[in-house]
């Protein structure tokens, strides 16, 4: 695929469709990904708010909208077990595969990575477009499964067979996953080739911003981890559609009826294949946000990051190690108990680079001149809250304590602290940081502060109670927690969590308004409003097709702030002197 570096100079007029819909420009595709993935995040959040009602007030009709659901889903407005399980499975799937990954990689990676390395576009612009145009139909396919007879997938986002083979809705889930994985693979290849081949002169690997490194490692993870799940999904599809028995053992009796398949398969095989993807996937969710946090912190402390190389090498180490820890999700799955010891050790090893990254980011504050603007608040909130997520992983990664805590609300609290107060907080901060570049206008600060404080406080109020419930032994995935005695003493925490979730929804309104209002009416801004050093701030806001007036030349590392003896406190990578 050839790329004309001077293409922007003599462009024919693009039609509306070519410019905004079927665009090959990485910036348009990035914004398409941004809007679409935020839309899916809202939908996933909406599903969760329905579930939270049922968890706090089981057996009570869902207010306002309960009677709009069909009698199968919610008889008399009260959620059924099937509907709850469908919402749960779809919430997880949508948030992970349609929300955060496309936002962190598809949106931020697409828009920012080529700019930061000084490239005119991605290496394969058409493939880039195809990646988006597989993602969107894949997502619509996933959502449309709610309209199928029997409803959407009901076996959890993990889809463990045999349940997933005999439950309704799963075929659509699998088909949609195959489409989405294909989209991610196309994106990953594109990111790798772009980073390796398209860097501007002078942009050596060790001069790349941390964000680019994070995207690069993420692309490697996607490329290596997704194919096993794609294969596994096709096998599960075979089991469902053609009654093969890759995952189905012999002599099953389901609700009194003998299962028709031949049997001889092994349910654990799916779990191994699934977690072989899904653990690296956790780092796919976390690394791009870490890159965003590093960029924002360097910019707003006005000093170089502490331990740039340590940060990068830790990310690479996490990437390598993430392929060796998957079975810590399976300590009590029935796999050989001695394997548990092996995965215990690798799990503790992977915590070392993770701690190193957090340490570097905190030490980066030392000696700084910290500007407390909206993106910086989000980046700073990431540090302690992601820290809680990491620390609560410790008793789950340890085989012995996991016996008790596995499949309880403690797990839910832990990974939501990682992915929501970690990843999503950072991704929201990224919007405020790069918005001036995307639209040439600034977002409103006052609304930004309201959004920040409302969001972080309500997120903590949602997830903290989950840790307490988990300690008391309350299990996850119960559509009616009051059906079991040991959940009753902690049921009031469910109510706290539910009200906090509704508060979180309210606090997103200023953000949504701020985003669209500022897009057209925000205060106009300049090329480099944050006085940053990296390359994306060396081109107009928004950058034209082709990005740079002429190919930029890179003279120094990414974070040359507060260099002694210079008039300004930032020294851009492109400045000749």
């Amino acid at each position: 695929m050839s790329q004309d570096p001077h293409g922007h100079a003599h462009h024919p007029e693009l039609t509306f469709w070519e410019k905004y819909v079927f665009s090959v420009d990485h910036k348009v595709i990035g914004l398409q990904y941004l809007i679409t993935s935020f839309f899916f995040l809202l939908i996933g959040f909406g599903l969760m708010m329905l579930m939270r009602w049922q968890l706090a007030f089981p057996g009570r009709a869902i207010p306002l909208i309960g009677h709009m659901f069909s009698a199968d889903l919610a008889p008399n407005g009260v959620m059924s077990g099937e509907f709850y399980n469908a919402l749960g499975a779809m919430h997880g799937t949508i948030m992970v595969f349609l929300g955060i990954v496309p936002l962190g990689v598809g949106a931020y990676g697409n828009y920012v990575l080529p700019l930061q390395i000084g490239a005119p576009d991605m290496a394969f612009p058409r493939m880039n477009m195809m990646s988006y145009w597989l993602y969107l139909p894949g997502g619509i396919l996933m959502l449309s499964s709610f309209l199928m007879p029997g409803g959407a997938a009901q076996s959890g986002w993990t889809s463990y067979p045999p349940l997933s083979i005999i439950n309704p809705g799963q075929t659509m889930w699998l088909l949609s996953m195959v489409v989405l994985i294909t989209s991610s693979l196309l994106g990953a290849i594109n990111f790798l080739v772009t980073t390796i081949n398209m860097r501007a002169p002078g942009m050596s690997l060790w001069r790349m911003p941390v964000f680019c490194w994070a995207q690069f490692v993420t692309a490697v993870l996607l490329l290596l981890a997704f194919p096993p799940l794609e294969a596994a999904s096709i096998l599960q599809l075979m089991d469902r559609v053609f009654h093969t028995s890759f995952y189905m053992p012999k002599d099953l009796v389901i609700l009194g009826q003998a299962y028709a398949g031949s049997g001889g398969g092994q349910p654990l095989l799916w779990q191994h294949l699934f977690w072989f993807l899904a653990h690296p996937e956790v780092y796919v969710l976390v690394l791009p946000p870490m890159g965003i946090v590093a960029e924002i912190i360097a910019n707003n402390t006005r000093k170089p990051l502490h331990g740039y190389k340590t940060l990068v090498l830790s990310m690479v180490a996490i990437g390598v190690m993430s392929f060796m820890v998957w079975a810590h999700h399976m300590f009590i799955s029935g796999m050989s108990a001695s394997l548990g010891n092996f995965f215990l050790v690798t799990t503790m090893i992977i915590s070392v680079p993770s701690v190193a990254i957090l340490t570097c980011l905190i030490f980066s504050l030392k000696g700084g001149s910290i500007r407390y603007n909206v993106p910086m608040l989000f980046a700073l909130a990431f540090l302690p809250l992601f820290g809680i997520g990491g620390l609560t992983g410790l008793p789950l990664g340890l085989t012995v304590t996991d016996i008790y805590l596995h499949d309880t609300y403690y797990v839910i609290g832990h990974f939501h602290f990682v992915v929501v107060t970690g990843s999503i907080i950072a991704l929201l901060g990224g919007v405020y940081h790069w918005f001036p570049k995307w639209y040439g206008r600034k977002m409103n600060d006052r609304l930004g502060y309201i959004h920040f404080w409302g969001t972080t406080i309500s997120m903590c109020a949602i997830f903290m109670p989950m840790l307490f419930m988990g300690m008391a032994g309350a299990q996850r995935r119960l559509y009616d927690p009051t059906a079991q005695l040991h959940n009753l003493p902690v049921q009031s925490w469910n109510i706290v969590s539910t009200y906090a979730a509704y508060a979180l929804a309210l606090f997103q309104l200023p953000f949504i308004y701020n985003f669209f209002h500022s897009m057209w009416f925000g205060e106009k801004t300049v090329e480099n409003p944050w006085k940053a050093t990296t390359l994306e701030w060396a081109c107009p806001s928004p950058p034209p097709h082709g990005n740079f007036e002429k190919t930029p030349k890179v003279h120094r590392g990414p974070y040359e702030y507060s260099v002694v003896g210079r008039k300004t406190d930032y020294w851009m990578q492109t400045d000749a002197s």
Partner: protein
Amino acid sequence: MGTYGWSLPVAASSYAGSIDFGIWLIHAAMLGIFALWGAFFVYLLVKYRARPGVAAEREDHEDTPSHISVPDSFSKFPFGQLLYRNKGALKSLVPDMIIMAFEIALIVFYAIPVWSKIKMVVPEGPEVVHVQLIAEQFAWSFHYAGPDKKFGPRRSELVHFSNPIGLDRSDPASHDDVVMGNELRLPVNKVALLKMYSKDVIHSFFVPEFRIKQDILPGMEMPLWVEPTKTGKFEIACAQLCGFAHALMRGDVYVQTQEEFDAWYKSRLAANPAAATPTNPSEEF
């Protein structure tokens, strides 16, 4: 306080104490780490806020430029020079080292020994109480061998609503067997070995007071042992999503003295239903 509360439930098995020890130790360490980090973090945020006229201080990346010589005390031992020249970078790894040392100690002295005891050793001997557990959507069946210590054979073609585990009542080994629905009885202070099977999907046997959990895979035999140390009634819950009524899949375990247990067994045996072996189960529905 009852059996359950806001924190860990009552500990009612021989290994519950060692699991609780780990949970409290790790949480104490977590809180300690978080408090130290948090205090340092807040200090940095206040001390290094932007003030007019005060520029950020850059760190010196090379701690000791190469023209400055390394003290003799360092150049003596291997890698001494390298360590001395990078002492700043190493200092930032100190928190990491402390956490790593803590984790290694946890693995070596706690996790591997306790895990091996709970999950890797299957108890044997005449004193062991044997029970078979058969899980299905959405119920538990418990199968006792009786005085002959032989379990009657189970056949999937005999499964019927009156015989949920498909026990072959025509086999002599099954004549003194007892099958209970959603009710497990165990004698206190005796090691019980549960062999667990699933008829349909994956279930997970979870008794919070025993601090034990084990997934049950269909097509495989899952052993699990427990030594109850407190008499009383505890809840059995399914901890793995098993379908629309997963939340309702529960049972009770009654831990009794040996005498109570024996008396109960006799009463059940007397009430044993006649062998139900329809020739073609599907006709019955």
